[in-house]
Every structure is written in C-alpha cells, then in structure tokens.
C-alpha cells in the first residue's frame, strides 16, 4: 500500500511538473516549426533548401570533451571565455568573437547555428549561413582533401554521398585562432572535422559533427549527435552580423556595467 502511494506521488509530481513545460515547448515548437508538408520520403542525394537547426546550447562543452594533450591544456588555459568551467568576467575575455573576428568553422555550427541555405551544383555545394552571412563551398567532384592546406577561417571541405540520403563532409585547413565553442575549447591547424547530414525524410536532417585533433584531444569525439534540422524553404533569412562598432556600444552600455566593470 505504501509503495503504491509513493509511486503515485512520483507520477503526480512528474505529471504536474511536466505540464507547463510541455505546453511551453509545444507552443514554441508550433510557432517556430514551418508549416508542415506531408512527410514525403527524402529525395536521393539532395539536401538543397533552407534548413533550420533545432538549437545548440551556447554554454559550450568544456565539461564534455575528451582529455587534452599537454598542448591542448596549454591552449585551453590561454583562452579566457565568457562561458564554461574557465569563464571570466566580460572585461577579461579574449574570445575572438567579442572583437567580431570571424567565428570560423566548426564553431559556426555550434554557436548561433541558425538557418543555412544549401545550394547544389554539379561539382560542389554551397552552404550559406545566416550568422555572419558567410558561406562554405563543399566540393563534391571526388577530389581529395589537400595534403598541406593553407589555414583559413572556414577551412577546405570535400563531401561525398555515402548512400542516397547521407552526405559526409570532411574539412581541414582550419585557422587555430578560432575556438571550437563558447567555452574556449581550442583546436590546432591539424583539426579534421567530419559532418554527417542524414536526410531522414523530406523535412528532416539529422546532423552529426565529429572532432579529430590529436594534437589537442587524446581521442576523436562527437560534439553534436543527430541534431535535428528542419526544412523551411519559405524562410526569408534575416541578416545577423557581428559589427565591431555595435559590439563596442553594447559593451559600453551593458556588458561592463552589468559586471561592475564600467570604471575599468
């Protein structure tokens, strides 16, 4: 009898607690989900369109990554982020994004990963990102990755359809001034990123992002696992750009005063 009572209390608390959250979640999902088409099957080897990811926590992964190498630990400690286990006050951060430096790849698929428009040409795909209004070219003509690439903010990418519904993209040549995420996780120029876009049905892609940087991390790791992306071809992608002068205005009005640092 007592056991039934306890079980009943569990159910009661769980049900009552979940009710407002489920309402909020449903309302938000309905307001943000594009108008549902009938769920047609996925087309073959095609992810053209406007895709909206479901959201990635901006907090970062400083408590979730594999062990650092000695170099990785050194680089991590040199980074002073506004988030994560080593977060510092606003005035002390050296986050390159605070200066409106390029966010770079793969951070642009980890923080502010908003709408992307995918266009397919015979030899390449173009990913146009809402945040920062940048684009990446993914070469799909069978070429190999360069052996000694010049480092750039968004890297050099090649993609291959491993089956009719899964595109796998490999990227190298990434400038080590960018961070992996908001918590200051570093990477070297030897970073190799794999993206896996699996089109589940006409409207949905599951997106997985893997990091391989043996100079920094002792093993490969999956940083995003089957993140859902939904198709919304009616979306007029708004502009969202980091502007240095606007950032300074923000810091002057808000960030420093909020941290009690306006007199610094």
């Amino acid at each position, binding site marked *: 009898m007592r056991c039934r009572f306890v079980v009943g209390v569990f159910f009661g608390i769980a049900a009552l607690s979940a009710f407002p959250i489920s309402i909020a979640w449903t309302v938000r999902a309905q307001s943000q989900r594009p108008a549902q088409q009938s769920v047609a099957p996925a087309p073959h080897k095609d992810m053209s369109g406007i895709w909206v990811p*479901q959201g990635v926590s901006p907090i970062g992964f400083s408590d979730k990554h594999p062990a650092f190498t000695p170099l990785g630990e050194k680089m991590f400690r040199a980074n002073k982020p506004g988030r994560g286990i080593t977060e510092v006050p606003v005035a002390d951060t050296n986050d390159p994004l605070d200066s409106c430096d390029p966010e770079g790849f793969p951070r642009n698929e980890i923080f502010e990963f908003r709408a992307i428009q995918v266009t397919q040409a015979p030899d390449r795909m173009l990913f146009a990102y809402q945040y920062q209004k940048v684009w990446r070219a993914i070469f799909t003509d069978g070429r190999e990755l360069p052996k000694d690439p010049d480092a750039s903010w968004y890297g050099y990418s090649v993609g291959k359809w491993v089956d009719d519904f899964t595109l796998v993209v490999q990227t190298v040549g990434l400038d080590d001034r960018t961070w992996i995420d908001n918590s200051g996780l570093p990477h070297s120029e030897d970073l190799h990123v794999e993206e896996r876009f699996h089109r589940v049905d006409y409207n949905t892609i599951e997106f997985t992002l893997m990091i391989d940087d043996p100079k920094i991390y002792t093993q490969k790791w999956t940083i995003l696992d089957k993140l859902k992306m939904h198709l919304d071809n009616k979306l007029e992608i708004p502009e969202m750009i980091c502007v240095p002068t606007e950032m300074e205005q923000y810091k002057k009005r808000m960030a420093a005063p909020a941290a009690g640092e306006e007199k610094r």
Partner: protein
Amino acid sequence: MRNRRLASIALLLFSALMVLLMSSLPALAHHGNAAFDTSKHITIKGTVVDWLWANPHCVLTLDVKDDKGRVVRWAAEANIPSDMVKRGWKKTSFNPGDVVAVTMVPAKNDRPAGRIEQVVLADGETLTTGVPPNSPTENKAY
C-alpha cells in the same frame, strides 16, 4: 513484482523530466551570461535614456528613482534585432523620455542591469522577449 515495475516506470519518468528541465536553459550570450540570477524577476519603472538596436544585443538604458529618490541608471538587454522584430519590437520602439516598466532577470551582483522579459509602455503596449527563465533556448528564434 508489479509494484517494482511501477516504481521503475515512475523513476524513469522522473529522470526524463529532470533531463528535460536541465536541457531547457535560456540561451545566453557567448560573451558571458553576465551572472543573471534566473531565479529572480524584478520590475522597475523609469525613463528611457537610450535604446540601442544592434548586435549582439539590443540594450534599453533607463533612469530609475530608487526608494531614496536617487536616480540610478539601469541597463537591460534583449535579443538581436532580427529576433526581436518577430515579436513586434522596432528600432523606434522607444524614445528618450518614454516612461516604461521593465520586467527583467536581474544581474546576480546587484548591479543595475538585467535581461529583459517584457517592457510595458505608457500606452499599455507590452513587448516581450519570449524568454522567461528556464524556457527552451531561444537560440532558434529567427
């Protein structure tokens, strides 16, 4: 046996609920969460000094008289413009001199700063940011 099974199901439900709650964190800026105390909500009434319509956040600056009659300048941030327009906010939503009531999540360190939840204008118009504490991330509000 049946009771044990029910208890297991209840525990599973409870755990799932906890996971849901823990993943429902508000999306805060990369440059720091500015130590906002998400367990508190305060409402202040004051006079608009400035309205910054810009990235990475819009910022409303207002002068507020405290209970001793001193004027304290408050700063309250909202989202980026492209998020805000979908909720009816505009570059021209506020002018210096407007009297507004701002509900916000305040800074933890007792600084006169916070993250806006809603603003009520003198004519009664209410603008919300759509980000009450512990709501699902609004990172996807495009």
